[in-house]
């Protein structure tokens, strides 16, 4: 489903990723951990092809970074949902419109938009907040809206770049619970974080990145090898 073959990314004089090879299978839940600058965001950007490898190849579904044409990238992104630490919501639109926007700009009809948006809002538990503006929401609720927007087009994978970075522990916990629920329904989740407590409480496959290299790629039962998780 997602495969990295000896992927290196070089930015000016600094290597961002070095010879990374990995596979993320259908319906998997994967944590990416590592210090700032370890290469977590670079790895995620390679998946939604916001960045291309300097060397190696990334395969996402039927698309390959080595031969994808620019016109195909939007179609790849419809299969990959992305959420960020800063939510990236449109401040002048309601919760409903923020989510509906993601469908409208890819050509969905009004009726389809409505049913899909109401359905996803129910899934993330925000149906009662659909007419509220983002400024009236808590951090956790904003992140739920961002997740709903990422999921509304039913992607096969959800990429989350530090989704709990701006949230308090309780909100972070509820976001992880939501992500696990999403994962159980069949969507793969790849989440970059450096919140080890979250991983302890909800263990999944964890890839540890250091200076652009994969230091560990551990199954949930082997997480004790990471000193911070002992």
């Amino acid at each position: 489903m997602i495969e990295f073959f000896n992927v290196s990314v070089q930015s000016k004089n600094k290597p961002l990723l070095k010879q990374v090879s990995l596979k993320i299978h259908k319906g998997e839940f994967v944590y990416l951990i590592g210090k700032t600058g370890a290469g977590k965001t670079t790895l995620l950007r390679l998946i939604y092809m916001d960045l291309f490898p300097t060397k190696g190849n990334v395969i996402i579904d039927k698309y390959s970074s080595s031969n994808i044409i620019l016109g195909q990238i939007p179609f790849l992104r419809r299969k990959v949902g992305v959420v960020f630490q800063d939510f990236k919501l449109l401040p002048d639109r309601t919760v409903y419109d923020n989510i509906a926007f993601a469908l409208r700009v890819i050509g969905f009809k009004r009726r389809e938009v409505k049913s899909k948006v109401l359905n996803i809002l129910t899934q993330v538990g925000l149906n009662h907040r659909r007419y509220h503006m983002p400024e009236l929401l808590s951090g956790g609720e904003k992140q739920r809206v961002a997740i709903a927007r990422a999921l509304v087009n039913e992607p096969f994978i959800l990429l989350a770049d530090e989704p709990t970075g701006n949230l308090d522990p309780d909100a972070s916990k509820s976001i992880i619970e939501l992500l696990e629920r999403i994962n159980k329904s069949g969507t793969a989740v790849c989440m970059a974080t450096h919140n080890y407590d979250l991983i302890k409480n909800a263990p999944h496959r964890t890839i540890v990145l250091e200076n652009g290299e994969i230091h560990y790629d551990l199954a949930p039962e082997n997480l004790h090898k990471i000193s911070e998780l002992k």
Partner: protein
Amino acid sequence: MNLLLFFKEGLIGLKRAKLSAIITIISICLSLSLIGIFTLLGQNLKDIFFRFYKEIEIEVFLEPDVTDQQISRIESTFHRFSELKSARFISRSEALQEFQKIFGTDISGVLDENPLPASFRLIMKSDYSTPAEVEKIAKQISDLAGIQEVIYQKEIISFIHKYFNISVIIIGLLAFTLLIVITILVFNTIRLTIYARRDIIQIMKLVGATNYFIKGPFIFEGMLQGLIGGGLSLILVWLTTKLVKTIIFPELSISTYLYLFIIGLGVFFGLVGSYFSVNKYLKYQ
């Protein structure tokens, strides 16, 4: 359906980035007004020029002893000149009547005989009204048998022609410079508008909107700004025309096409400006 979305998003965009939209609209309005005024100036200058040139006359005086046969030969020669619009024969007695009409004096009472020669009054076609063409024709005519003298306003024609050409070049250069300035100005202000809304572009790209969908609302917004700017400019040009007509120059004429041209140019600038700005932004991204 997409058009409706583009239109709706374009309107939202205008509302979101009010200040930059206002700056763009004002830039378009002022630039178009200047272009409109220059066009108006050029058009009226041309009208005045052609009004004068339509009436370029060459007077051809005939020898006193010219025969009727020679006159009709000369007349038929004139008809063969494609540069001439008309050729009217004025007999000696007609010339005398005209003289009396203009000066109010009956010279036949003073002199024993009519001293005025018969003549032809030729009018040039406006296409051939350049000093060189008029001079060429005058030379050809003076070489004909039975012609005594060929007279036309050589100095005035040369003077007006020279200054008309200079004015056209100056107005043309100014309008061209203005066109370049307005293009850069509109392009940059629209670019700022787009930059101010990079978040929405980023979201559109993330959720998989194609470039066509991303560009659509911005192009609509640009066209809308151009339309509003053009509309305001139209009002400004109309008011200026009214003012000039009332106070300075009542003969000032304005074509309805100029108004259409201003509006069309506004929409065109908005469209091209936004198209290239959003393209450049997406390419840079």
